[in-house]
């Protein structure tokens, strides 16, 4: 952050906190929507477990972001080193693939299975792609019921690719929101020049302020409208843009141009 006087810094931090809180509000329902989409798609593909892995850092590592199934909770936040396992390969190659007999290899899957107590036998993995960039991997593991399982069919692979498209948009929205949040936390956490207690008090004051609360309420409202459907979203966007245009015409500042 460039050197700045106290007032300016306070203003900037205030803006940052608002962003962080909005990002938090936005990311939480995103992961819930992801889980819901996983449930629907897994049911469609008659698969027992489904998970979303997203990139972690820039070296191709992955991390479980959302999962459903018996060991879902244990999977969350487990990391997959770059290129490891089917997911790692799909991430780095962009090629979807299905394996119908994962078997007992001493690979990444046996490590994860040892951690979770699960037995991976079949995998369908497809890349999550947004604007040509691979941002993660969507995986379906095993069938419902008892083995032997029917292999995933090419039609199911195509269907998974369609679900992957929807899931990729959610993951992208999650990543954008998280980027804001991480950035804000880094700026606040990394600045040793400030008294932590003072910053914390100030934060508390800000979060308790009516202005801030009203803004959070507005964010929740927008989220609620957006979840109602395309028509509601379009209407909401056009109303909000009109408000901004009106506001622009009256003042010199616009939040869009910051």
């Amino acid at each position, binding site marked *: 952050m460039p050197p700045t006087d106290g007032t300016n810094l306070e203003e900037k931090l205030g803006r940052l906190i608002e962003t962080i809180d909005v990002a938090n509000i936005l990311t939480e329902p995103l992961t819930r929507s992801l889980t819901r989409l996983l449930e629907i798609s897994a049911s469609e593909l008659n698969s027992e477990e489904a998970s979303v892995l997203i990139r972690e850092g820039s070296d191709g590592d992955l991390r479980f972001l959302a999962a459903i199934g018996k060991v879902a909770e244990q999977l969350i936040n487990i990391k997959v080193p770059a*290129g490891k396992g089917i997911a790692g*390969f799909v991430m780095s190659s*962009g*090629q979807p*693939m299905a394996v119908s007999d994962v078997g007992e290899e001493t690979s990444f899957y046996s490590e994860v299975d040892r951690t979770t107590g699960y037995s991976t036998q079949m995998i369908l993995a497809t890349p999550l*792609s947004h604007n*040509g960039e691979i941002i993660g991997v969507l995986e379906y593991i095993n069938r419902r019921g008892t083995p032997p399982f029917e292999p995933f069919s090419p039609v199911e692979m195509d269907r998974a690719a369609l679900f992957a498209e929807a899931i990729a948009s959610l993951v992208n929205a999650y990543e954008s929101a998280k980027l804001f949040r991480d950035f804000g936390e880094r700026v606040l956490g990394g600045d040793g020049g400030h008294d932590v207690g003072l910053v914390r008090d100030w934060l508390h004051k800000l979060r308790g302020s009516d202005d801030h609360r009203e803004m959070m309420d507005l964010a929740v409202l927008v989220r609620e409208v957006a979840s109602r459907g395309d028509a509601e979203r379009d209407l909401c966007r056009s109303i909000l843009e009109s408000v901004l245009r009106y506001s622009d015409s009256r003042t010199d500042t616009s939040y869009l141009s910051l």
Partner: protein
Amino acid sequence: MDLEQQLGQDSVGRPSFVNIDDEWRSATGSGVRVAIVDSGIDVSHPELKGRVVGSVEARLESSRVVFDPSASGDSAGHGTACAGIIAKIAPDCKLFSIKVLGAAGLGDGQAFLAGLEFAIKERFKVINLSLGTTKPQFFNPLHDLLDRAYQAGCIVVAAANNLPHPSFPSVFSSSLISVIKSSETDPLNFGFHFGQVIELTAPGVNIRTPWLEKGYRTLTGNSFACPHIVGIIARLLERYPDMTPFQVKSALYAIAGENQGRIESPEAD
């Protein structure tokens, strides 16, 4: 003589002057140099022992990609799987591994392009590309590389991507051979669908093939259709080593005509 015969066409509209003899069916790909740009190859796998004549791997050196001799094998299993399919169809071809996946600090697309360029510079007669990219920024560099391959007489075979968006290079139909999976079980029974973005179909569903740790896996994906066509091309090239990419494509077209009627529709249609 019916109208089709008068026009010199067979029953599916292929001109009869494109004829290819059946000698390729008994060929083994002997002497044909085949590069696999992938995750490496496990050269110790019983199915591949003695069949992989060399391995290199990408490394980043002050923002440039260089290739060093590699003894690290396969990092994912995928390259070994592709090599296994080629070796089954053309057991006497000379496989060469160009490892572009699994190298630390390398962007996927950059290593992929460098691997293809390396294969073209080394004049490998057939290049297996079971990888792809949808990154728009790679469109032009890949196009240039494929033109260079075509002019150098290298036959590049690429797997189509299963994603709803076009992937590169599989959509470049003029300068390479792109393949999508079919449920066909006979490894030699492939199809040619002129006019479709991805022209060739080959077996790619539940293919049992070598994997890491001397094991085997049953795999589904366009990645595994691609090496089937590579194997068939290696057989053709054993018989006719000087075939150009254009002639190879014509030959595949003619053979697919013979296969027609036996081949199933591609699954992704």
